[in-house]
């Protein structure tokens, strides 16, 4: 009994420490991502948390930013669609990167790639969430503040993703850059395959459905 309590406690501690580790990673990306993979200082649970926070930030931003800065057609926005439109490309890019880097002696496992990408989303959350508040304080003439902060968060995220992939795969910067492009290309291929798969699936379904109908009409 006593044992199990201590185990859950250490789990929680570990989760919290990996969450805190995110703050270390975004300020010390080179050390941070290296240790995340090799010293096991990051966790999947924390990565999931960051991803969920990212999606949440995105939705909150659309809903609660002052209308001077974002005029989203609230009446048409579907939260699931918004989340899906971010989550799906994110996962496809992760898969594509993993699939291609495995072929070209990348050291990262899928788990590592996913974790690095999720940790790289943290600046978006940390800057854009307070920015929602800021948008209610500044006026339209001061919109430069808003756009500069927003751009900083995006550039920071991209930079972190870049460094993260570099450290995870143990690539040089040039090869990482090349692989960013290759990853996008791979993602397009995956999308194409998904499309083909579904169209074949619907064809197959149509075939069996018509077969069934034919037989059913012949028999009765």
């Amino acid at each position, binding site marked *: 009994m006593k044992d199990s309590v201590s185990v859950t406690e250490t789990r929680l501690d570990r989760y919290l420490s990996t969450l805190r580790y995110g703050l270390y990673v975004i300020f010390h990306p080179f050390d941070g991502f290296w240790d995340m993979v090799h010293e096991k200082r990051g966790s999947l649970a924390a990565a999931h948390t960051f991803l969920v926070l990212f999606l949440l930030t995105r939705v909150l931003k659309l809903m609660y930013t002052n*209308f*001077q800065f974002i005029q989203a*057609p609230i009446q048409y926005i579907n939260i699931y669609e918004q989340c899906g439109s971010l989550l799906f490309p994110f996962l496809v890019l992760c898969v594509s990167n993993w699939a291609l880097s495995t072929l070209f002696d990348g050291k990262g496992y899928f788990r590592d790639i996913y974790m690095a990408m999720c940790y790289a989303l943290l600046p978006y959350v940390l800057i854009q969430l307070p920015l929602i508040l800021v948008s209610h304080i500044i*006026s*339209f003439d001061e919109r430069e503040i808003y756009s500069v902060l927003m751009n900083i968060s995006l550039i920071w995220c991209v930079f972190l993703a870049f460094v993260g992939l570099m450290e995870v795969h143990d690539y040089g910067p040039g090869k990482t850059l090349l692989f960013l492009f290759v990853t996008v290309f791979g993602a397009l291929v995956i999308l194409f395959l998904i499309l083909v798969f579904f169209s074949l699936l619907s064809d197959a379904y149509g075939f069996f459905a018509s077969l069934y109908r034919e037989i059913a009409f012949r028999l009765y």
Partner: protein
Amino acid sequence: MKRLACLMVLLCFLPSLAIGANDGYETTYSYTYDFWDEVQYSPDPYRVSDVIYSVTLGLDTAMRKPQSLFVQGKRIYVADTGNNRILEIEKQGEEYVLLRVIDHISGAQPETFSSPTDMFVDPEGNLYVADRDNNRVLMADSEGNLIREYVKPVDSTFDQSMAFLPNKIVVDSIGRVYVLATNVNKGLVKYEPDGTFTGYIGANPVKYNLWDYIWKEFLTTKEQRAQQASFVPTEYENIYIDHEGFIYCTNIVFSEYDLRSDTAKPIRRINAIGNDILIKNGWEPPIGDLQWLEGSQDYGPSKFKDITVFDDDIYVAFDRTHGRVFGYDPQGSLLWAFGTKGNSEGAFLGAVSIEHMDHDLLCLDENENSITVFTPTDYGSLIYRANDEYLRGEYETSADTWREVLKLNANYPLGFVGIGRALMRQNDFSGAMSYFKMAHDRQNYGRAYRYYRKDVVEKYIGWGVAVIAALLIVPLIFRKRKQMKEEVEAYERLRIGNRDKA
């Protein structure tokens, strides 16, 4: 009891009577666009008040393919192109009376016109005629005697092998003549008051993108290139000169994808050096229809056949594609849109020219050979009145007028902006903010918000300072006290120590 029953029955019908009144909503004839670029039907801003036919004017030969209208004061001029003449009509009270038929200019060579397509009359009464198929622009005094002729420019910039076909003309207050000539794509042909040609103004800038360039330069052979159209500027469709001397041009050659990004610029206001200075503070640039019906016969962007500008800088453009008229305020926001295609009164099937007389609109139809007169309804006049009152500085009355407008059309964003602006002038910033927010006007909202924020900060700055001071000072006091206590204790210890030693 019976009377009561009658009253009850009457009361039952009353609401239906009120709904049955034709306020324009049911006909889907008039509308505006909301912030999301969706059509919001509105009451009619204009109704047909009169239609002038050849018969009502008492003409012996009916008008044939008239091409252009011009209004100076109370006088209407019609270019009756098919009959080679110009009609001068005057509005006398509510009647439109034919004053004279001008079919020749004495002293000109030849004296008669050949397809006159446009005319202009300056405030002194001098008549300018674009005599297209005679390749000249004539200037005559009010008696019809020739003063001057403007002919094909003898200049290296003008292709001498090409005919000079003046199509539309405007004249500025000094007497410079600007001619929109067919097949001239360098801009408007400009003549000084003494008749000398001094170049072109306001050429449509050539537009091509990188892909076009690559395609043309590298991916096509010389033979193919010769077959393709070269990158040339396009001609304008029509011109109008406003009371300040700026020329409004409409342009109908563009690709529809350039409309929203404001690179197509179907309406331009050009200054003396030919730059577009039209103000565009609306949600979308003034491009006419924002949506067009998929699969309909008239599918496509608005193409402005003609434009006219009121004295209060409100401009009205006629869209030939859908047979509609669009009114824009000086800031470029859509005031109203109305019209349809068809043969009924108030429909624009063969309309070619639009003009204004005060706030009345006159529309010339080349198929019906008629001039339709549109007069503002209560709703339309209220909009104009509210604008005028604001410009005159009567902000409170302007806000009241806008409230009247909103009673007739609650979906009218400019009404909310109008009330907001008036409230802002009265230093009610939070009230102004709420109205601007309803109208999605972030520019004005931002302005009101800055004043509001200043007020709030000034109001609470004292408390803020007090709180910060308290946060700084209170720990300081505690620390000081603790320090004193420690000193006292140290002293005590020292004293006890000394005593023990002794």
